[in-house]
């Protein structure tokens, strides 16, 4: 069965690029425009993995991860963070909140896939 990945980013171009990359690799992709928006997908979908940006309006990446981890179904779901190299301290905070790993922007498409495949099969 195809795995579903939830991509959360407030930037249209990143969303498109990430979903395109993942869809080409055979994943089903759901997209949320910010943390708040993405929460709606959690209930009705079996999401194997979440990729989220850090800075977003309404609900930022860290807040979003905290919310996700409160749900029983998503306690062990891998969550990847999209970050830039300048956010070392944020990375730590996100890890505390329950993030599994991160991808540093700018990233190559195959790097993204490699990281995804590192976490889900």
């Amino acid at each position, binding site marked *: 069965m195809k795995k579903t990945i939830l991509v959360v980013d407030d*930037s249209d171009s990143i969303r498109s690029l990430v979903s395109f990359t993942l*869809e080409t690799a*055979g994943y089903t992709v759901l997209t949320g425009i910010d943390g708040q928006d993405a929460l709606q997908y959690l209930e009705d979908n079996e999401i194997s993995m979440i990729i989220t940006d850090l*800075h977003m309006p309404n609900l930022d990446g860290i807040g979003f991860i905290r919310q996700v981890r409160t749900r029983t179904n998503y306690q062990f779901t891998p969550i990847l963070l999209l970050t830039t*190299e300048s956010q070392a301290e944020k990375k730590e905070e996100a890890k505390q909140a329950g993030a599994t790993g991160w991808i540093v922007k*700018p990233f190559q498409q195959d790097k993204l896939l490699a990281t995804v495949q*590192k976490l889900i099969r």
Partner: protein
Amino acid sequence: MDQFTKIFAEEAHDLIANLEKALLTLNQQPDNQQSVEQVFRIMHTLKGNSSMFGFEAMGQLTHHLETLYEFVRSGQSALTPALLTITLSSVDHFRNLLNDPALQHATTLDQHTQLLGQVESLIREKGQIKTTAIDDLNNKTDGVTYYIKFRPAADIFSNGTNPLYLLDELCHLGNCRAIPRMARVPDLESLEPASCYTNWEVFLATDKGEEAIRDVFIFVEDRCELIIQKIADTDLLLMSAFIEQVKEWGTAEDEIAPEALQSAIVSVFHSSSAQVSGNVKNNNEARGAGKTKENTTSSIRVAADKLDTLLNLVSELVTSQARLSLFAEEHSSPELAAIAENVEKISRQLRDNTFSICLLPLETIIVRFQRLVRDLSVELGKEIVLITEGTETELDKTVIESLADPLLHILRNSLDHGIEDANTRLQKGKPRQGKILLKAFYSGAHVHIQIEDDGAGINPAKIREKAISKGLIHPEANLSDKELFDLIFLPGFSTAAKLTDVSGRGVGMDVVRRKISDLRGEVELQSRVDKGTAITIKVPLTLSILDGLLVRIDHTRYVIPLSVVDKCFEVTHHQLSNTFNNLIVLDGEQVPFCYLRNEFNLTSEAPPIEQVVVIRYEDKRVGLSVDVIEGEYQAVLKPLGKLYRQQELISGATILGDGSIALVMDTNKLIKQYSGSANPSLIS
């Protein structure tokens, strides 16, 4: 990738516009924390995205700017005007970069190096410069064998990690043998299913280097115990003796003791010759390339020309629908009538909907103005603030585009000639800071845009002098203030004593008026000396379709825009022809009227009963006489042919349902021309 670059460019345009807006807010309220946050966030997004889509130069600059705004955000440094100026220049530069990402033009390159230098020096002032080190550690070594001890923390699952995947990944790096150690697994009763009790020992032969191995564990480095030890400079796993040894270790309970490991390696080297053993490699199962889209987006981007096509099609539909209605009327078939009515209803809704799509808030051009006011007030050494109201007012995008230039011109005038410098203002007892208020609001099918400044105002006497000296009016002409102000809009009239850089050269208010008239709009100016000047622009919401009243005079049909129609009256021909001074009493009020049959030089016999359509003209009511009122009509405006462009009374034509043509009256021009009262003393 191209398609993404395009999306990126569009998105970047939006981001840059938002950035500019936030910066301008900061310009007015430097301690607005929210705007600082916003600037930081946009910089951040721009930086991340731009380097991903090949806009390296932009990434570079945004990176440094982000650093600077990080300082501002965290309170380490204040937001200085210098920083703001550099950022605003960068905003312009970003726009150039979108077209020239590789810095091919010399000017872009110059600008880039200059800005980069300025930004970097600002950062250096703070004594911290972050470098964009992209680690490219290619420690190429071939066939080195490592011993890896991996002891994950019990709670490793809780951040979504599956340790088995990590081991799998290790195996992809090269030849690999893993031994699980399950000594820590407790009894079933005390076993916590969400905890991890297993350790692993791994032998890995790889040419990727230790860095690559650490990379595998990068997400869990603080949630595990990890020992990576280089045990040989060759691939030990190619030696059968070593593999035997590993198997033996695997059956043992305990982990390998370091000494045992050491001695085993030594003995393997001594005893055995290298034997090639088969590689154990996991094949990555091929993944299907099927696609599903479940994108839910709240808005989509559409190319502007697609919208134009849609608008055109809707216009055509409205025309065809009018024909259908007419046809249905002529053939008294109730079924046909029902269909025609339905089509009419739907096409009306479709029309309204399509128009609302093409509407843009005025805000889209206001940002430019904010910028202009800021830049110019600095240049002119005046303190001026632009306050906007009702910028959410929506207008057709073509109207908005055509409005930008006239509005800019008016603003420039206010900045340059209207508002005085701080000293003069203080002497006059006004606040130091000059104020320009830009206000937009709906009024019927029109949008009013008012630009009001609290500057020096215009002295009507001066206009009069000037107009006389330019030969625009007769020296003895007796004009009201309103008429005098109107002169400003005449070609060849410019009140500025000398032309400055700011308010342009030779392009006067007449151009403003012409541009607005092209939009079927009006401009009006009011001013009081030392109090300020207010210019009101009135433009229609949309250009291509208008609701009108279809009337007939003789054999020609005309459309009067419904928005100006006040009331219709039925009168006898006698009432109209037998009047003094073209006044008629309607509803107990005297209303001046134009007898269009005379004005149009029609010689045919007038019908005994005629209609008077009362029009709102400026703040008065004026009647227009017509033969017959045929009804309401949605007119799809078509321009007149080349030959008729010069005349002003008819603003366009429309094709009626039966294929004949109706002319759309420009009632303002019509009344102005025929009432004979407008600018009576103008020498034309």
